[in-house]
């Protein structure tokens, strides 16, 4: 592809990613939403790539403009964990900014993803978060310490997992905790004089 000219339209982005990623691009969806009386368009791209081509996809985005990574969302979808990297390109061009939602599926038996901090240094916070909350192993992450969860939180449990490694059970039965059962709630509020 020749020199990239900014801002890129959704159609140009589609052609660009098809050329860059070829068969590794599994899914590509363009989306426009109108806002306000003047009908300004908000532009979105939803795309999914093969896990092997993930880093190439990030490199392709980085070629467009110094990428802005908003955050990485992640969720447990049963058989696999889905990560969505929310990038923004075309910023600094009024009305043209496009959110690129880059999806990648990680099978439960191989929960690994390469780090992108060599391309986007600002991605470190969100990569550390994904390690803690979903149990995804970020390969070559420059800093793999725990960031958000309490030190006492079990090492092999992950709050956003819905399988046996999640914390579903603990959170659902907090009210059955022995300490709270010692004294019925009605008696306690009477003693404190409150409602």
């Amino acid at each position, binding site marked *: 592809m020749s020199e990239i000219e900014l801002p890129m339209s959704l159609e140009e982005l589609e052609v660009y990613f098809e050329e860059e990623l070829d068969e590794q691009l599994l899914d590509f969806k363009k989306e426009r939403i109108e806002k306000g*009386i003047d009908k300004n368009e908000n532009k979105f791209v939803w795309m999914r790539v093969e896990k092997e081509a993930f880093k190439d996809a990030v490199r392709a985005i980085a070629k467009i403009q110094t990428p802005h990574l908003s955050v990485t969302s992640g969720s447990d979808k049963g058989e696999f964990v889905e990560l969505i990297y929310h990038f923004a390109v075309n910023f*600094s061009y009024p*009305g043209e900014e496009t*959110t690129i939602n880059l999806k990648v599926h990680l099978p439960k038996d191989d929960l690994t993803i390469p780090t992108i901090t060599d391309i986007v240094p600002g991605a470190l916070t969100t990569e550390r978060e994904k390690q803690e909350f979903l149990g995804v192993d970020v390969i070559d992450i420059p800093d793999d310490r725990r*960031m958000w969860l309490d030190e006492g939180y079990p090492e092999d449990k992950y709050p956003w997992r819905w399988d046996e490694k999640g914390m579903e059970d603990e959170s659902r039965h907090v009210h059955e905790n022995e300490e709270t059962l010692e004294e019925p709630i009605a008696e306690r509020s009477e003693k404190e004089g409150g409602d």
Partner: protein
Amino acid sequence: MSGEEGTTYEVPIGPIHPALKEPFLIKFKLDGEEIVDADPHPGMNHRGIEFMGMHRNPMKVIPLSERLCGICSIVHQHMYTTALEHAVDIVPTNRARYIRTIMMELERVHSHVLWAGVAAHEIGFDTHLHFTWKIREKVMDLLEKISGNRVNYSMWTFGGVRRDITEDMHPEINETLDYYLGLYDKLEDIFLGDPSIRHRTKDIGILTEEDAMELCGVGPTVRASGVKKDVRIDQPYAAYGDLDIDYVVPSRYDYEDVGDVFSKTLVRLKEIVQSINLIRECVEKMPEGEITSEPNKAALLNKLKSAEGEGVGRIEAPRGEAMHYVRLTEDNEDVDCWKVRASTYNNLATYAPMFLGEQIADIPIIAASIDPCIGCMDRAEIVDVNTGEKEEYTDEELHELSVQKTERMSGGIDE
């Protein structure tokens, strides 16, 4: 971390400090007075709100989302509702878009005025803290008049808002805007003109344009470095696409895009005027019509319980870009996935380059310069890594260091 030739100290600052809102810890490595490394440790009070949201139906998450933050409660409510509206194709009415914009800009005025007070306090100007926090009451009164609440406004709903801004409110809105415009010169005189404040903010805590871009920083923190990123302009939401708005960067006002604390102050002050103009424009242009496109909440909730879709809500919060991601699935009545990203999350990474090479007495003002939505320091503990001896600083003592520096620097200034 081992000390180099016995001169490097590790100084954990945090996690509790009454000057800022939430608990937060930064571990500093010092060589004498000079900072050689800064390592932020968030998560001191991780409440797991996203997890809670993923166990509630979509309607119940609206009030939960505004409780994410005390100052930008509107911001999170807006992001959550727009992300969900995006996911299930709900179109808010145009009148609602304007009301939302007015509320969000009022909140920006509130947040920036509050920040100016915190910044003044950190360098020892408590008179200015009391002045700014006094004038901040006016906008809170107006927010209360419109929404019924001073802090958690409960204004948003899917498809629009819950309360109208009627014509009889216009005089009070205009009066409030005039009040701030009348005080603006004084604010600028204090924060940009005062020689002592200039000495404490100029060329302190610099974030270069390159670092700002690479570290994905957001908001006034990066605009002060000359980075033109503002979601209100780049990807206009609510009514911003209809309004006259431009990037607030120092070079627009004949200043250099340095990225120091002074530039960040300048950007925030100029944004107060920008917000006032935007609110005026909204009040003038506000179209007639309904305030929500989904008046039947019970029917809507029923629909949402089996709806399928995903959406993102991005916004330029007072502290910078923030976003929510929401997904609903057919077989899950609750919100299936909810990711919240506040501005400070991205700006955390910008701390390291800003602190590097600065002095210990500058820690409070640099920490405050990104307008963090987290607490700062209650107690600083200085550990000699070679002997393991500990020395404790209370927040007052650390604050005193900062105040003393201001006094030292004010000493040689000709007024």
